[in-house]
């Protein structure tokens, strides 16, 4: 203990540590604004709060300070070697005990740097930004994100130094591991600053917190492995590497520790429990002989345990198949499967993402699946594109997370959907279709709903929402948003815009498709960016409802913006409104009319076109042209991609890259090329004529399938007419 105290005093006197702590505080202070310093335009002007300030400063601090403390550690450990005093010290005390004490002293100063940095940033938040402090964010971000990065850096570089006995090699190796962490998309490898861009103000860090903690646990094991390996190879006085190893290996505890740590690291990495490789819809093969015509989910959410359980019954019309396949979520374990009331054995495919259920070759088949567990997220989307999660204060389950196992069959003309979601009573659930009843019992609330649709893409969204409701003609909108963001919603007149969009679409496309089902718009966390529309529910990520107060000056009392004042803020606000308009347009094109996708044709093109028209109508040509030029640029850009023009070279790249390029190409066609084609059609027919024809198409194909060919025929256009050079 006295050696430890001496070492702390000695380091303090050397002044480098004071400089390091001061530098760390400055770096963390700069990091407060790190979101606006990135290239992530979606996150620009996000309202500053404890979550954004603490995470930004901790993440930025982690990326720089981990390297600085790593260098300080290796310099401290190499000090005696450089000054040739190692031999003298070794003759007096156990040199490696001294090294351990030095490492502990550095860890002590890392704690001090983290603590002081945290206090400085809290003080800045309180005094300069006058934002109330939520200490839980600070504790999490500084002690789970920042401090472990510093600790890992010290442990890794210490282990490497013991292993190599060289300052240069150990630091350069740390540098390589550091670069790997910064350039990796795998959340398990991002030990420096984690894989997260921002902590949600709406639901906090809960949905992603466990992945960060898991990353930290994995790296504790990896660091212990490296450090213990270092101890195993530490140089004994007068011995070379081999002889030192042969002496060190006699310590059974150390050997056991090395084996346990290496095996532990491997086990934690392989058995990672939170993610899976989610199958894309385009990758699945549909059985054309079977139709789905009924779905009855009875789901119970246990938010405290982040679990769900329940029974889902599917009704099929079978025209000659003996097998029905389902895409599943690997996190959900099956209790039983019944076919027409009888429990049966099912098979899982090799990759565990699909199950095969044998069915009798009769017309009516009813399958009931009972399952439960924790939802797994997409492997490459942790923190940025999570299609499903359940946390204490929120539920976000998109259909593509396969939380309702997806039958790989055709969908009937109409699918009767009815069932319930049972969740803690402090949550408001946004259900698909029409809410028919709510029952509260013993701390849980059962939300019963029914719906008739041509798809079975149902989601479940829950949170602590404020709900507002408004109507226009036959259409009712339920708007669910966080009470925390009420001020922004009111100041930026978001509800007014939603009403205006409803009005514009009703006037220019036609009446909303249903008087029974209200349109539900729900705010969701930023862990899935952008928006989504499934059935009559639209989700929009919180950045659209939670920007800085500086944005308020953009709009006048009528919610209009000055078109001549085009700035980054205008662009961001218009993009937000445009995205809401896009998702709302899907209620007409997608939910109302089933647009049969065949690239470039899909509901996305029509949704993009109408959001553009709304922006043009609301804010004028100058503003809407910004969006149009973005589409044109993207189409042009992708057309000139090397691998798109030289597809024969694609065999040089790996499968993952090929798939992502294919995805990028399809997205560009659906989202950017198609609306440009539609605008060309508008140019040919004239704005009024084009919109009139579209209105007719909507009326004719409401609740029916609309193919590209049928669309062109109805519009009196040909593919050549709307071809883009």
């Amino acid at each position, binding site marked *: 203990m006295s050696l430890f105290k001496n070492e702390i005093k000695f380091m303090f006197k050397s002044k480098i540590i004071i400089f390091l702590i001061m530098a760390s505080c400055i770096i963390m202070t700069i990091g407060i604004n790190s979101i606006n310093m990135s290239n992530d335009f979606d996150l620009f002007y996000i309202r500053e709060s404890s979550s954004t300030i603490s995470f930004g400063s901790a993440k930025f601090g982690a990326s720089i300070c981990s390297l600085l403390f790593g260098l300080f550690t290796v310099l401290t450990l190499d000090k005696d070697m450089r000054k040739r005093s190692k031999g003298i010290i070794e003759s007096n005390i156990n040199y490696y005990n001294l090294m351990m004490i030095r490492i502990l002293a550095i860890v002590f100063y890392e704690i001090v740097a983290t603590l002081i940095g945290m206090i400085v940033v809290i003080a800045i938040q309180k005094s300069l930004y006058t934002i109330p402090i939520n200490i839980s964010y600070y504790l999490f971000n500084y002690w789970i994100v920042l401090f472990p990065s510093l600790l890992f850096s010290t442990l890794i570089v210490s282990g490497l130094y013991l292993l190599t006995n060289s300052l240069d090699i150990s630091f*350069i190796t740390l540098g390589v591991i550091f*670069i790997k962490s910064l350039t990796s998309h795998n959340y398990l490898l991002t030990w420096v600053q984690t894989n997260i861009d921002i902590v949600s103000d709406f639901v906090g860090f809960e949905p992603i917190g466990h992945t960060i903690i898991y990353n930290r646990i994995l790296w504790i094991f990896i660091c212990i492995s490296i450090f213990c390996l270092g101890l195993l190879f530490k140089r004994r006085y007068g011995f070379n590497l081999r002889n030192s190893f042969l002496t060190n290996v006699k310590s059974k505890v150390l050997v056991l520790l090395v084996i346990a740590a290496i095996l532990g690291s491997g086990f934690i990495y392989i058995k990672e429990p939170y993610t899976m490789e989610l199958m894309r819809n385009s990758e699945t093969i549909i059985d054309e002989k079977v139709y789905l015509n009924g779905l009855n989910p009875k789901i119970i959410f246990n938010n405290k345990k982040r679990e769900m359980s329940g029974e889902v019954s599917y009704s099929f019309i079978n025209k000659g198949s003996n097998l029905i396949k389902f895409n599943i979520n690997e996190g959900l374990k099956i209790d039983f499967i019944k076919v027409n009331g009888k429990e049966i054995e099912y098979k899982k495919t090799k990759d565990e993402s699909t199950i095969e259920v044998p069915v009798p070759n009769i017309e009516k088949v009813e399958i009931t699946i009972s399952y439960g567990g924790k939802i797994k997220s997409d492997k490459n989307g942790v923190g940025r594109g999570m299609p499903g999660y359940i946390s204490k204060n929120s539920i976000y389950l998109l259909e593509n997370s396969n939380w309702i196992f997806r039958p790989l069959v055709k969908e009937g003309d109409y699918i009767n959907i009815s069932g319930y979601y049972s969740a803690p009573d402090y949550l408001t659930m946004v259900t698909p279709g029409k809410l028919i009843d709510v029952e509260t019992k013993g701390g849980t609330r059962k939300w019963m709903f029914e719906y008739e649709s041509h798809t079975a893409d149902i989601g479940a969204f829950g949170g602590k929402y404020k709900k507002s409701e408004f109507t226009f003609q036959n259409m009712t909108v339920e708007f669910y948003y966080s009470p925390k963001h009420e001020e922004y919603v009111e100041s930026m007149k978001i509800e007014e815009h939603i009403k205006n969009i409803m009005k514009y679409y009703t006037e220019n496309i036609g009446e909303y498709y249903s008087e029974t089902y209200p349109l539900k718009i729900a705010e969701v966390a930023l862990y899935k960016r952008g928006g989504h529309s499934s059935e009559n529910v639209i989700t929009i990520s919180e950045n659209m409802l939670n920007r800085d107060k500086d944005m308020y000056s953009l709009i006048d009392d009528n919610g209009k913006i000055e078109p001549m004042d085009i700035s980054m803020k205008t662009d961001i606000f218009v993009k937000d409104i445009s995205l809401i308009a896009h998702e709302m347009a899907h209620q007409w094109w997608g939910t109302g009319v089933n647009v049969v996708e065949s690239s470039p044709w899909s509901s996305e093109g029509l949704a993009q076109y109408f959001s553009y028209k709304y922006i043009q109508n609301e804010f004028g040509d100058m503003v809407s042209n910004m969006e149009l030029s973005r589409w044109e640029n993207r189409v042009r850009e992708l057309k000139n991609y090397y691998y798109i023009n030289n597809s024969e070279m694609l065999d040089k790249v790996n499968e993952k890259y090929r798939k992502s390029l294919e995805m990028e190409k399809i997205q560009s066609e659906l989202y950017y090329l198609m609306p440009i084609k539609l605008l060309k059609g508008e140019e040919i027919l004239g704005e009024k004529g084009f919109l009139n024809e579209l209105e007719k198409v909507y009326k004719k194909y409401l609740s029916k399938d609309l193919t590209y060919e049928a669309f062109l025929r109805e519009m009196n256009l040909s593919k050549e007419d709307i071809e883009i050079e």
Partner: protein
Amino acid sequence: MNNINLLKYEIKKIIMSKKYFYMIFLVMALTYDSLTRLITGGYYGTAPFSEWSYTFFIQLTSPLVISVMIFMMTNIFNEKELRARKILFSAPISQGKYYLLKSTSIIVMFIITALIPIIMSFIYYKVLFNYNEFSTFIRPIALFFIPSFIFFLGLSMTLGKINIKLLYGLIPITFLLGTIDTTNILPQWLDIFGAHFLKISTFAELFGREKEVMSLNIPNSFIYSRLTFISLGILFLIYTCIKTEKE
């Protein structure tokens, strides 16, 4: 011993060390990872062998290569070398000549180290894409590799001569300047690795481009900034060579 022999000895001392061998191994590992994981796909949809992709490749590898160089330079200013220098200076060799000799050996060492990712990339392009026109890569190497190297060489010599601790401080700074996005943090004149320039050019020229092959336009201002870094590096070197130390 004439100067050439001295130089040969210095270079041999560095290159034949286990430490250098390991550093080379790391440079090779990073080069392989960068080429196969990040360059194969091409930079922003350009060909993997375009000037853009190659500039990006240079920017991925140069922080490590330059950090290796600075680490090797710490050997010039470490305690052991300082003790040897006292003996050396009693021989008929001037301080200027001594530092010139050291700088030259570092330059040779750097050339050898830098040649490793460059040769690896050439082999990779030849084997995978049957691409031979390596002359197109001269410009990225000349503008994005050499100026930063000369600048850091001069700066390291000067800082090392003042205090070896400053040299150690320079290593993480070099590393961070080359690896993290500093566009919105640091002024543009501090764009030593040319990362700000590449980012701005990407936004201006690659986004929404109208041709498949886009040449990387280098404005005169960027060339002047490179010349400034080269001049500063040479000035630092001259300063180190002519400023005599008190014995």
